[in-house]
């Protein structure tokens, strides 16, 4: 779908659903995922359909992912940091009981 117009300058390593991805430090998480060929970012809770970014300006919330265990993060607004673990947002993270 998308490709980089120039090489990565400050490469950092992140993961998406456990798979390792090289990304540009500080770019938007959405850009990093697109550049790695990923287009489905979340499952809509209403009908479990796969969704991806639509507006890229923080309005549509279709780009929600889980970052380091926190669901509901907007991939168009979050910036890449080394070691980020990203997963698809299912819309339904399970609340954990207090241990």
């Amino acid at each position: 779908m998308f490709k980089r117009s120039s090489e990565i300058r400050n490469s950092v390593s992140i993961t998406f659903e456990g798979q390792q991805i090289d990304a540009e430090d500080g770019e938007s998480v959405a850009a990093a995922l697109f550049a790695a060929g990923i287009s489905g970012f979340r499952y809509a809770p209403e009908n479990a359909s796969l969704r991806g970014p639509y507006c890229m300006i923080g309005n549509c919330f279709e780009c929600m992912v889980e970052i380091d265990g926190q669901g509901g993060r907007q991939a168009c607004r979050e910036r890449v940091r080394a070691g980020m673990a990203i997963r698809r947002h299912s819309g339904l993270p399970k609340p954990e009981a207090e241990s």
Partner: protein
Amino acid sequence: MQDYDVAVVGGGLLGSAFGWGLARRGQKTVVFDEGDRAIRTARGNFGLVWVQSKGQNMPEYAAWSLRASQLWQDFAAELTENTGVDVHYVKQGYNIVATEAELESAIAGQDRITAGMGDKAYGYEVLDHKTLKAVAPHIADSVPGAIYTGHDGHCNPLFLMRALHQDMQAKGAHYQPNTRVGAITPRADGGFDLTGEDGTLLGSAARVIVAAGHGAVNLVRDLGIDLPVHADQGQVLVTEKVSESMSFATGTVRQTDNGSFLLGASSKQIGMDTRTDLPTLAEVARYCISVFPFLGKLRLQRAWGALRVMTPDGCPVYQQSEAHPGLFSFACHSGVTLSSVHALEVAKWVSEGNIPSEFNVFHPRRFDV
């Protein structure tokens, strides 16, 4: 001849329940509703079908709430069958409290209700922390326990209203939105003319129910009825959706059928003001997190303020005008809990033109002492 047997003024949860119940009894019914921006208490409603907090100082109200709870299952099932709209009624609720002091006060309240119930089947249990933890694994270690009655539960109040609107029309009721009734005028033949705010005649009816919440006060004052209600503002918080983890409701937290958590129970007397304020929202959030720590992680989706229709003693007002028989004026803040009895029993009173004497206790003359 009048155009309708009954005209209902107000299309909120009260008016919808009456409209549905009357249409179901074969009454030729019209329901006048306001526009899209009406002060709709149902929209702010928390969705509790709740008995244990009601009528601690008025046994008849406690018994009436119990009766409502007993009818709710069949009422919900009938609506769902007729409309395909699931109102998601779940009869499971615990009054989970944050502190020992709250628990003590809750127990005292239950003792008052039990004493007032007489021979009616009402009982309650106090669950200690350990017993409660077995059914509510998400509670904080500091939670002392909960009250359980077996009568409390919750539903989706928005779908309840949608189902009532849909089914009352299927049953032949005439639903008229965007219509604010400006005046009710007694006719020579014993019925009433209803006119809009601009004076145009909207129609006539043999009997009229005014169930317009805060909007009803001025409407019935002209007919000599004093409706003693004030606005009690509650602020409600809704979270993002999470997977199903809590089937029961508490007095302040419940998970809706779509996965969101609702947090609520603030109460302020600040007039007709629906605005939220940050200290109150933060306080509601803090209290609920103190009971269920996992809530802190969830995203706030929406917050709003809604106005409860509150009477001086918090109990319902049901009255028929003595000067103008056939004119009924009803108000209460527990429109969800009581919707079953409103639809199935109060609608019968109106179609028969008479409030049974055992319900005279709900007449506002009780405030005259």
